[in-house]
């Protein structure tokens, strides 16, 4: 059974004057441990695709299941629980909370979890170490470079040990060298068993993916297998 199964995914944005078909019947199956790149031009529907896969926007039609769970059969609060337990988000513009330190930002998904404070802290420190920022835990986002902020965002996405990591243009606002650092970090995580779906329009990034799906006008126009998925499943 595929880890992610998407069937007939359709999303239509309607207003009084406009009707935009962002996704038009997308079908996709992704296996566990994959590093999937979703590419396409601006307006191709890739951000809408990630929003729906992340349980943030309801599709107009179609079905999305992750690890056998039908996302949109869940109630609003259960969907929030699903996001917390199953997903890690890395946003394009980092989206760190400016008044929390790097460590507190990483601990954010644990804020509403019932677990000892010491355990939350240890878990967050461990993941900060993993992304190479153990020494910057007490710094505010404004005291970190763009690359470091992106690493904090990745650490925050991983702190809950989610089975699926979703990344939206994680290198979009970084320079080339820092972008490569982040992509290498994501590759390393994937090699450790993390399933990753990443949206990007940067062709440079395709070399990191196992598989690349190309969207255009809400349809999958290309689906290429680039590398074999490692058999490790230590997500």
């Amino acid at each position: 059974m595929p880890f992610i199964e998407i069937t007939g995914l359709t999303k239509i944005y309607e207003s009084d004057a406009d009707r935009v078909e962002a996704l038009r019947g997308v079908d996709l199956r992704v296996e566990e441990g994959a590093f999937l790149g979703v590419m396409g031009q601006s307006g191709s529907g890739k951000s809408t695709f990630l929003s729906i896969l992340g349980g943030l926007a309801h599709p107009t039609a179609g079905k999305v299941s992750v690890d056998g769970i039908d996302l949109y059969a869940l109630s609003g609060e259960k969907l929030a629980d699903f996001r917390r337990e199953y997903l890690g988000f890395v946003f394009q513009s980092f989206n760190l909370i400016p008044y929390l330190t790097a460590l507190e930002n990483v601990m954010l998904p644990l804020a509403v979890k019932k677990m000892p404070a010491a355990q939350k802290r240890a878990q967050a420190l461990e993941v900060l170490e993993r992304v190479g920022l153990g020494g910057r835990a007490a710094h505010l986002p404004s005291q970190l470079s763009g690359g470091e902020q992106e690493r904090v965002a990745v650490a925050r996405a991983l702190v809950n040990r989610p089975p699926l990591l979703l990344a939206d243009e994680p290198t979009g606002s970084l320079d080339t060298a820092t972008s490569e650092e982040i992509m290498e970090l994501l590759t390393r995580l994937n090699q450790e068993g993390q399933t990753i779906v990443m949206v990007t329009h940067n062709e440079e990034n395709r070399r990191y993916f196992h598989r690349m799906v190309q969207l255009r006008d809400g349809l999958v126009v290309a689906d290429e297998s680039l590398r074999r998925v490692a058999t490790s499943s230590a997500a």
Partner: protein
Amino acid sequence: MTLKTIALNNLRRRKARMAFLVIGLLVGIATVVTLVSLTEALTMETEHKLDQFGANILITPRSDDLAISYGGITVGDVAMQYEPIREADLPLIRTIPERRNIAAVAPKVLGAVRVGEQRVVLMGVDREVEFALKRWWVIDGRPVAADDELVAGSEVAAALDLRMGQQLEINGRTFTLVGLLQPTGAQDDRMLIGSLGMAQQLLGKQDNISLVEVAALCADCPVEEIVEQIAQVLPYTRVIAMQQVVKSRMHALDQFRLLSLSVAGVVVFIGALVVFVTMMGSVNERTREIGIFRALGFRRGHVVGLILLEAFIVSLVAGILGYLSGIGATRALLPFLATEHPHFEWSALLMGGSILLAVAVGALASLYPALHASRMDPTEALRAL
């Protein structure tokens, strides 16, 4: 890391906004505390005055057909057909079981005298007791200190064109006018006031008393019982509690209390509006942040909880500071408003109530902004995904 950590950090970062919120609510709470505690202090002051100085029990001769003019006595040309109060019986008042609650016994004798061509009322009083009891009397000159001295009520003084130091001839005796009573709005304005013994002699009422005013400590004592006990020792008299005096003063205070509560209500409402507008602004400003929380798996309830927690912290601070400010304002204002007995009593109920009020107002005013925040579409909120 809990919701509390996020709330505290956010409040620390937005110090100016927090200060604005606190001040908005603090002013309301301080106003409530000031008005409530001032009203309480003024009530105590009034009770104290009544206890210490004001007569609240009147003893008059029992009579069925007398028109009432001063405490049940009509004086002047009307013949007074009643059994007068015997002066020798007055010590009996101090023998009743509730005697410890009797602050003063002020006997009076009343009668008509002629001054020149005019007939006026002469009131003989116990000099020591009467002038202490009538604290509201304002005398130009001084109170009566000897048997040949008189104080004139304002209307008598005007009618007879009396001046301070003037000599008056009454029934062949000469008196010196040592004081002019400023208008009181009561019967006292139409009287000449002198010593009790002298008046008894002059009026031919030796050993008799026309009426007695009794000041009983009434704040927490049973006036009705005292009245009953005096009536038992003086069965031939009529003893009444001047409840109207007390009631009218208490009514005035009730009106003040009502006005205070209305003003406080308006100020608290304005405070609630300040909280509402500020929290709504804060929520709108934090749209993206709330979107992040939702994307990271915060339930709607968590978002509501976070906003309400911030409101709770702010309201708690505002409540405590508002209470302290209100008490400070009361202490500063009290000496100007309660000149006789500026006594402030610390009240745990007022402290708890004002803090609870602040928290309740803060929470209620923040409820809609909190619900609004929780209903935000995370995708819209983020605008990134």
